[in-house]
């Protein structure tokens, strides 16, 4: 906390570093959510492509619950860390495109036999799950690197 008005260059650098670390740490919930989203996506599309009744209905219910919980969870952060925020836009764009792909190929995967429907289904699962998993991994890796850095000057 600041009390005086005089500020040396070292103090200024120390404060910049302290505040920077605090903002970067605030991105942890978002990174964890991306990982959870990647896992949930993989499970959801695996069930939708290859599951039978009643598991596909359960998957839809589970996805609705996950989406609702996400809306509340993602409202919590007080700051959006710059690098993760920019990465999130790319991840979200790829994720939405992959979701659309999966929606379109689901009838083909469900209604046909043989190796190709399985390959298409697996590709769909991977392209949908990898972007959020990558985003989460990148976010948590940045936080791990931050913890390894020397502590801020007080």
């Amino acid at each position, binding site marked *: 906390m600041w009390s005086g008005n005089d500020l040396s*260059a070292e103090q*200024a650098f120390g404060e910049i570093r302290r505040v920077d670390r605090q*903002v970067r740490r605030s991105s942890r919930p978002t990174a964890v959510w991306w990982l959870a989203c990647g896992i949930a996506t993989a499970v959801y599309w695996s069930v939708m492509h290859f599951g039978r009744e009643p598991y596909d209905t359960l998957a839809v219910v589970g996805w609705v619950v996950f989406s609702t919980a996400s809306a509340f969870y993602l409202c919590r952060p007080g700051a959006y860390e710059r690098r993760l925020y920019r990465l999130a836009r790319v991840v979200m764009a790829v994720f939405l495109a992959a979701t659309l792909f999966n929606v379109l190929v689901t009838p083909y995967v469900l209604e046909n036999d043989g190796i190709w429907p399985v390959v298409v289904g697996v590709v769909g699962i991977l392209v949908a799950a990898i972007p959020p998993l990558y985003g989460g991994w990148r976010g948590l890796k940045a936080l791990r690197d931050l913890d390894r850095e020397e502590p801020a000057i007080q």
Partner: protein
Amino acid sequence: MTATTGSGHHPRHKLDEIIHAPVRLSIVAALAAAEKAEFRFLRDTIEVSDSLLSKHIATLEEAGYVRVQKGFVGKRARTWLSLTERGRKAFAEYVSVLQEIVTKPTKGAVDAPH
């Protein structure tokens, strides 16, 4: 145009006096690391009162360094702050002047006997 702390040759005279004040430096540093940050997050991070934070944000907004956006999440009012391009550029310049000060040998150190 940015306000500087003086007209001498020492790099400290090139410090932007709008940023070079304890609370404002913390605000700008936090916003430089964030795409946007909420008022309450800044208040808790910088450990200042709402009124003091508001006062300094108004100074930064007036200088064109900070953008203020008000919105609602549910029924809750939220104020989001972000750095403008001008603010980001001013902060980058401020940090480079600080680096210059830190790396510049002081007169005492140069004159000191070995």
